[in-house]
């Protein structure tokens, strides 16, 4: 699904955010990207959704070589992935249903598809009972569920989440982790950049640790701080 080969990213001649990074993530995997602030986690995700370009090396996502991709082809690639951020990015003047449907309407989806997909994805994230609520009426966890629903409503094979639990308390974070795990169980590849030790240590998945722009650890079912006893 994702393959990075010797990828270096440097912005305006500054110190490289990523240096000689090589990693492969298979279809249907769930991967945490961990590391201190400024290590390069978000840059790695930005590369994947074409918000940053590699200075050198190759990035392949879903069979597409991104470095050589024309700007006009980026929207088509982005329809094949969902992206979730720490600040949710919901539209305050639209309710839950409209926020989720918005992602389909702007890519020209028909009404029938919208009527079918939106309830399905709201069911998946556990918000089928609140379609008429506005973002201001929702808790942080519920808002993030709406953001996840919006990212998934187009049935993308890849979900990228950049600090999805950064604004949430530990229990709510775990709820979001469970939603992401459920999404992954349905076959979607999930890549989560996070600082959330509790979630990483509780919902055990592959962990890739980045430090100073390099991959310093890559272990299956890893813990946030390296090898730790598997809970339960």
């Amino acid at each position: 699904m994702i393959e990075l080969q010797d990828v270096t990213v440097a912005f305006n001649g500054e110190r490289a955010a990523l240096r000689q990074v090589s990693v492969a993530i298979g279809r249907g995997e769930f991967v945490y990207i961990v590391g201190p602030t400024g290590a390069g986690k978000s840059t790695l995700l930005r590369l994947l959704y074409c918000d940053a370009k590699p200075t050198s090396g190759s990035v392949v996502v879903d069979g597409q070589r991104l470095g050589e991709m024309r700007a006009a082809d980026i929207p088509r690639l982005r329809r094949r992935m969902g992206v979730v951020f720490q600040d949710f990015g919901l539209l305050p003047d639209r309710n839950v249903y409209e926020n989720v449907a918005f992602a389909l309407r702007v890519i020209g989806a028909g009404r029938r598809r919208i009527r079918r997909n939106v309830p399905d994805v709201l069911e998946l994230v556990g918000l089928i009972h609140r379609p008429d609520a506005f973002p201001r009426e929702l808790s942080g966890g519920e808002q993030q569920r709406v953001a996840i629903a919006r990212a998934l409503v187009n049935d993308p094979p890849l979900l990228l989440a950049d600090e999805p639990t950064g604004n949430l308390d530990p229990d709510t974070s775990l709820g979001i982790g469970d939603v992401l795990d459920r999404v992954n169980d349905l076959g979607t590849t999930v890549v989560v950049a996070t600082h959330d030790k509790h979630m990483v240590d509780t919902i055990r998945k592959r962990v890739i640790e980045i430090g100073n722009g390099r991959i310093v650890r890559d272990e299956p079912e890893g813990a946030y701080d390296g090898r730790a006893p598997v809970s339960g």
Partner: protein
Amino acid sequence: MRWSSAVFLCEEAAKSIRRNGLMSLAALSTVTIALAVFGGSLFGLYRLHQFVAAQPTQFQIAVFLSVELPRSGVAEIERQVRGIPGVSDVSLVTKEAALAELCEQDRQRGTQVVAALAGANPLPDRLDVHVTAPERSPEVATALKDRRRFPGIECVRDERDVLETLLATSRLVRNVGGTVAILLFLATGVVIQNTLRLTVLARKNEIAVMRLVGAAPSFIRMPLILEGVFYGVAGGIIAAAVVQFAASQSSRYIGKFQTPIAQGLPPAPGVGTVFALLAASGLALGIVTSVLSVRRFLK
């Protein structure tokens, strides 16, 4: 494009026009004023052009003959006038025919001039002299005013002064109206651009989400372009109504003064033409400004 997508784009444009409130109103009123001045100038210029174009066929010099002149003398002067270079035709209007003309004018205007004459006819015989081209009329008029050559001519009246005033007015309307219209067009462009810039800021979140979920760039731009087109077309239609109202009021006013020079003027452009022209100008202004704004603000 699907029907539902077209509806969605229109809804988004309408939402942003409502959200911009006062700024939208400012954009709309500026477009209206600019197009009203533009349309008004164009309308006035076109009418003047119509008038000037009609002159070669209707321009004439009225030559009033001495009342003591016998009919044979009238015929001799008519023969001599025909020989003046630049004269295309001469027609005699006898004092009896002139009185009949005056009666007809009384009837049309509701005046009582002929009745006041109490049966007398003080009118002289008149020669209506047509020239081959309007620019020949000064030399023809000068020749006719030569007292030694034409002692039987009492008075020569041509519409040269009126024509020259109208031509000067035409130039003034063209220059001032054109300059004001261009300046207002530029100002309108700036106001529409600022409004769309506010729209881009207000829609920052929507635009970010649209980009993230893979909306085509044209789909992201379209609500902004529709908004610009709305300002242009709506402003054009309101401006057309203003121009049409002003034109009808001014023709009603001018119609009160029947002058020989105004006779034979072709009819004014129709309501449909004025609306179509100004709506099309507004559409062009809206499209050009919004496309430039989108290129500038939506990089």
